[in-house]
């Protein structure tokens, strides 16, 4: 029922800072426009029949899993999710809803998790993106990936990359003292990664197979090992 979003617009290390900069505002407006232009499926309105301009293109450079990548002539409507999945042919990051509702597309950008479907690729010039492919490989699993295998924290596997990227970032958030809705003491320097903290913070990542109980076990084990 709770849908605590794992998307944070502001710097999570200073939750009290509500100042929006100009770039954030423009970015938010662009994202809104992109969503609004999608056909509703309920039949296009006459107003939509205006002539279509050729798509505007841009070149975007970013670090992806530690590698410098350059996206030349990228359609500026391309989300970070589709830039990863289609342009860079890295489909580990999943498209479940394309509307920021399910969390399957979660990646870590400059240390913070975001829904990559709610973010245009051009918003990430010069930034550093970590995807599921960058955390580990089948022969050299990240500790969180290994814990998901051990605790069977997945079934169909489709929400799994997003769950794991979120899980890695959540433990960092807890360690960094970023509070959540269930945090009792907001002034503590850091928090214990309790099951309730994990469940609250992971609630933006839906798993329809229902592996939640196992995911909490996997994350608790990794959190315990690191502590």
């Amino acid at each position, binding site marked *: *029922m*709770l*849908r*605590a979003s794992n998307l944070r617009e502001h710097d999570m290390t200073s939750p009290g800072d509500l100042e929006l900069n100009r770039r954030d505002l423009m970015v938010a407006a662009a994202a809104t426009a992109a969503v609004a*232009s*999608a*056909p*509703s*499926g*309920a*039949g*296009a309105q*006459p107003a939509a*029949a205006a*002539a*279509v301009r050729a*798509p505007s293109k841009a070149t975007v450079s970013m670090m992806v899993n530690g590698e410098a990548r350059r996206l030349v002539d990228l*359609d500026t*409507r391309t989300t970070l999710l*589709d830039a990863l*999945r289609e342009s860079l042919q890295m*489909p580990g990051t*999943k*498209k*479940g*809803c394309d509307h920021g*509702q*399910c969390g*399957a597309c979660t990646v870590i950008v400059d240390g913070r998790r975001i829904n990559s479907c709610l973010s245009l690729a051009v918003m990430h010039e010069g930034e550093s993106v970590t995807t*599921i*492919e960058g955390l*580990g*490989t*089948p022969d050299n*699993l990240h500790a969180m*990936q290994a814990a*998901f*295998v051990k605790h*069977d924290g*997945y*079934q*169909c*596997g*489709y*929400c*799994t*990359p997003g769950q794991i990227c979120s899980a890695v970032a959540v433990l960092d958030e807890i360690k960094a003292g970023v509070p959540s809705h269930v945090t009792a003491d907001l002034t503590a320097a850091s928090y214990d990664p309790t*099951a309730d903290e*994990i*469940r609250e913070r*992971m*609630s*933006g990542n*839906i798993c*329809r*197979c*229902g*592996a*939640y*109980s196992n995911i909490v076990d996997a994350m608790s084990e990794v959190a315990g090992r690191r502590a």
Partner: protein
Amino acid sequence: MKFDTPATTNPIDQLKVVGKPLDRVDGPLKVTGRAPYAYERHDVGAKPAVGYVLGAGIAKGRIQAMDLAAAKRAPGVLAIVTAENAGKLELGKFNTAKLLGGPDIDHYHQAIAVVVAETFEQARAAAGLIKVEYAPTQGAFDLASARDGAVVPKNANAPADTAVGDFGRAFAAAAVKLDESYTTPDHSHAMMEPHASMAAWEGDSLTVWTSNQMIAWAAGDIAKTLGMPNGKVRVISPYIGGGFGSKLFVRADAVIAALAAKAAGRPVKVALPRPLIANNTTHRPATIQRVRLGAGSDGKITAIGHETWSGNLPDGSPEEAVAQTRLLYAGANRMTATRLALLDLPEGNAMRAPGEAPGLMALEIAMDEMAEKLGMDPIEFRILNDTQVDPEDPKRPFSLRQLTECYRTGAEKFGWSARRARTGQVRDGRWLVGMGAASAFRNNLTMASGARVRLGSDGVVTVETDMTDIGTGSYTIIAQTAAEMMGVPLEKVVVRLGDSSFPASSGSGGQWGANSSTAGVYAACVKLREAVAGQLGFDAATAEFADGEVRGGGKSVPLGDAAKAREIMVEDKIEFDKEMTNSKQQSTFGAHFVEVGVDVATAEVRIRRMLAVCSAGRILNPKSARSQVIGAMVMGAGAALMEELAVDKTRGFFVNHDLAGYEVPVHADIPHQDVIFLDDTDPMSSPMKAKGVGELGICGVAAAIANAIYNASGARVRDYPVTLDKILDRLPEMG
């Protein structure tokens, strides 16, 4: 291999690999994002264009005109396919409504066009430029109003009416009676991976990479829809991002990708946008159910009656919510009735445990209510009315039925004795706390299933079958089966699934997949053992396959030696003799235990504890089987507390058609969950002695939650989901 006598001792009984809680063999690929799903097959080099589907904006009527001019001129557009230029399309054997609509519209968001462009962004933008003029007509969208016109369904698995004894007389004469109605809403599968397909033509042959639970059905229905010979369609679906019934059948993405690829002259991939899925595809239909129970003052049921009403499109099938009531409890006088109303909502069809899932949502609240009327503990009431024989045909026993043991084990483990019979008695801070229980019941279905096995000189055993793994663990349990049969470690088995060029399998549905598909692999492995023994000069009947060797008559030879000259390849399938397997009733059983807290001021419900005790045949892999059960319990928690497709009864569509509007459980909704499997090795089910477990877990759990809410708060809610607005004005006085 014909399964026509109960299984005796066989190599699976060694349980060296089968029955172990092993990690999934596909795990490392899935947790690193390397498992390729349908829309992301960059690895096959198809370089596809992208199709974007437009859905109808009315529920019923006709397209008067479609103006495609602006869309055709849009940048990057390669082709637009509508019913007008698609050529003749047949209706698939497993489809109720056409997958490409027009000019007649059968339901809201029925696909009416696909725009193909170089990129997704271009296709989406161009689809928004299509102008459609509709002539809508009146439709029926409200089950409650259509109920009076409901009729005996034409397309059903079970008889519309069943009767044993004299229900009417027995019910009238019963010392204690219950007569209540219950409703369950429309449910959406809401699997995480949207329906997606990529299609490529080579001459008159078509390959479709898709996300589908039943490969042979899919290949057959794509061919039928497109008017092609069956052998010309290849379907590939190695990874499926959730199904739950939504991907049992070919849907619009597959057919439209094929049409679009033909029109564009190159491969095309299509994914259904999330907001289209609820109305474009299938859903679990809403039900209205009436349950009547009559019992003597001793608590023994003398009359049990269950009626259900659901709706569907013309030629659709009913939700058979009375199925479990024919088998679950004793009682000499019984009746069920299933009626179907005509509705113009999207197609209703199977979702995880069709029939039993919504049926038990009603029946198991009724049992809780009846126990209270009788002044009995609800578990004791169920145990008193347990039966070891088919209640409609007492000469026919269950093959193995441990419902009472499930309850006894669970009650002990869960601490049921602490439950207070009176409602609203337990308080923990702001929470009113209560416990509820309910029976889980689902029949064990079996399906013929084939497999091919190969042995290489390196001793590696490769299994090929068109079986699918929809998160169920098929890759792993099939590998375990082959490893056990051939006496090799799991690392020496390669499993290849989900390709119509492999032998046809049971597929994944109706919780028949695990038992049936591994039995098919068992059959192929028996043949491989014979071939190996023959090649190496062993007696097949007595040779032992262990530790990568074949042993017998005092000698032992590495298994791979049998394939030194050339690879050995054999194929077989398991076929179930229905007369034998039906001679006893095969079902799976369980007992759900739930503790909830109901906020004394806001009526917010939180699940605090959940336990399921299951008796479901031999458990082939306790780790993946447990995951199936807890996952199904999560889906049942959704059905109990939040899931409901809201019907716009004027315009005829599901309003909350995305993952924000259609709420499913998230992490914060689900506590730690426990599952106990009872030993249930059933020689009637297959050589594996296994049954299904993937659907059992959802059966009954929603009622257990509703019963716990009643026990906590005194609010008896009979209309799902049990949201706080239905509880709030019935809470006990605070203080």
